[in-house]
């Protein structure tokens, strides 16, 4: 078998030399690395929507490529492959790509890298993430208003800071309109397994939850809510088509604006390593149309969303009590800092769950 390969190599070496003659690279090549399939209709799908929008907006100035289903610990080669094939800007869109991205960036100083949800930067590595908790606060309020059983169900994936902050913001939102509300949390320990997510939602529904929230990627929990005649929220993308009667709204990850802006910066030569933590004001977190709710709830949700957008309302405004009822340290006295939010590993008061330490 080895011999075969060798022969083939020799035979075709000439042909390749001719075929792979470089054609003038005028377009900026932009690469994307996704952890899931673009068909997940959730996290990776939304990143790909951002890529498509960017390609559309910048037209023939750019050429985009993506690698999907890239396992995080085996991603260094994939990222390097993009860098070697002439991509000058590379977005790595999952936390686990952090160390590999930095290592490849060190080898390719001329290539710009953008790593989503991480915290390590370099001269040619930026980081970016979105304040999803802002959206979670709004849906928490809606849930608090809509529940009849005062029990909200939450299908969670893994206890990383983003998910924990989401749970806290959701509960703070719900408590702000309904002090009696309880939240039940189920960790599915997966980002994507429709069957298991559905089972988790069923368990929550059976235990009296009448609003289902999820921080896993498929639309299965939302569909379960619809089947049971209850309500829920879409995750990452607008999932109304899966559950037109149950989706109250959805937290949509909107990366288009950011991808356009950053690619433009490379084209203009103004790209710098930055750390972006954009929220509803930057439209990085976007809420799908409010539906299936009475007008007064809708009005409240719209007002809250507008207030957050205008930076008049901060979901993590102080004082905030932790699970034991102790006030959380608040540096400027007004609200938790970004650093506190992006490394959150504690629950606020009223959460009936324990975090793994």
């Amino acid at each position, binding site marked *: 078998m080895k011999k075969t390969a060798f022969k083939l190599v020799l035979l075709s070496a000439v042909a390749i030399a001719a*075929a792979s003659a470089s054609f003038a690279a005028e377009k900026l090549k932009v690469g994307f690395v996704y952890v899931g399939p673009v068909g997940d209709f959730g996290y990776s799908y939304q990143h790909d929507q951002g890529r498509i929008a960017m390609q559309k907006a910048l037209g023939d100035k750019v050429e985009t490529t993506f690698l999907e289903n890239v396992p995080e610990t085996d991603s260094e080669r994939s990222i390097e492959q993009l860098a070697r094939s002439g991509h000058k800007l590379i977005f790595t869109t999952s936390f686990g790509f952090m160390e590999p991205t930095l290592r490849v960036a060190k080898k390719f100083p001329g290539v710009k890298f953008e790593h989503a949800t991480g915290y390590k930067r370099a001269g040619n590595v930026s980081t970016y993430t979105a304040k999803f908790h802002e959206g979670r606060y709004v849906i928490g309020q809606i849930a608090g208003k809509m529940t009849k059983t005062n029990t909200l169900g939450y299908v969670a994936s893994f206890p990383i800071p983003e998910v924990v902050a989401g749970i806290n913001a959701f509960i703070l939102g719900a408590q702000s309109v309904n002090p009696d509300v309880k939240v039940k949390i189920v960790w599915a320990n997966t980002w994507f397994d429709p069957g298991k997510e559905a089972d988790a939602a069923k368990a929550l529904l059976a235990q009296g939850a009448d609003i289902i929230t999820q921080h896993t990627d498929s639309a299965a929990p939302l569909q379960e809510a619809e089947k049971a005649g209850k309500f829920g929220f879409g995750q990452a993308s607008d999932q109304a088509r899966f559950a037109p009667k149950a989706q109250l709204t959805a937290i949509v990850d909107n990366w288009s604006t950011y991808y356009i802006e950053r690619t433009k910066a490379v084209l203009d030569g103004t790209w710098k390593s930055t750390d972006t933590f954009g929220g509803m004001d930057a439209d990085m977190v976007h809420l799908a149309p409010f539906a299936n709710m009475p007008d007064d709830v809708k009005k409240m949700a719209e007002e809250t969303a507008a207030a957050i957008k205008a930076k008049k309302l901060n979901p993590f405004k102080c004082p905030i009590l932790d699970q034991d009822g102790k006030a959380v340290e608040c540096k400027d006295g007004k609200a938790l800092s970004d650093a506190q939010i992006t490394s959150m590993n504690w629950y606020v008061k009223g959460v009936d769950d324990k975090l793994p330490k």
Partner: protein
Amino acid sequence: MRIDLEPRPARTLALDIGAPIVALVAAIIFGGIVIWLLGKSPTLAFEVYFINPLLEGWSLQELAVKACPLVLIAVGLSFCYRANLWNIGAEGQFITGGLLGGWLGILTHNEAYQGLIGGWWILPSMLVLGAIGGALYALIPALLRVWLGASEILTSLMLVYVAELGLDWLVRGPFKDPEGFNFPQSVVFDDIARLPFLAEGERLHAGVLLALIAALIAAFVFARSLFGFEVRLIGEAPRAARFAGFDDRKLTLTVFVISGALAGLAGICEVAGQIGQLTPKISPGYGFTAIIVAFLGRLSPVGILVAALVLALTYIGGEAAQVELSLPSDMTRAFQGILLMCVLVADIATRYRIRLRLGAAA
């Protein structure tokens, strides 16, 4: 219609070389049709998938890096499979090996525990711990089989999921980097706790050498040692083996320990080699892929080396095809399946003459 197989009297060199070429051509024709239907150039796809990765220094290194864990695990599995024992939990043994070895990497972070004697002992100890971690985890299904007669197929597979969840819990809890903003990952190991790279600034790590050594030793054991003979005899003729006085319980435990140790070693090589820290997932399914590698290599260490490189090529070529031709990853995966099947057919064709008889009943 029926298919008849007639054993070939002798293997010929022409067949041994010709069959893989035919397999390759067949796979390319199947794949080429699909690629052509998708509106891409089949010739360019061929070049990107099979040729380019073999021409560049960096991708040749990547082939070796990717093949390394597959070789280590598959060589270990070949001991089990030769003895007709079905360890399909190498993925779990890989994880526990990486975990136990990685634990030392975490403990010794920032030159802790190095003091007067320096850090020379850390890496070797990590490798040993990795092998021990894998071996101990493999002992569970082996002991359950020997003591209670529980099927190792089920226990070893179920233990994979348990190991995955255990790693997940540790990396989010006790093993978490205290300065890591509560993200699920350990500290990055000190350089002294990393496998050395064979060239400056490159990715080819010393684990590749360990894989080669393991394959060579296994080849020697199978060909020359009494133990190798015993393993094969128990697998092929268990009754004869018992008459010959071989202790099949002891042998069961031994092959599981060997297999687990090599899977664990693969785990720690991956953790201390290319990853450099513990993360919630340390394997993209190497433990399962290695099962194909083992059988594709006909359970012989040399065959396994070749098979692992073929598999590695399909991964790297597949990625290149995604980048250069914007093929979906599912396309490259389906093609990987087709290619493997064609290789398997070619393999059988070197040993049997395949005759189609139309109109005959089976």
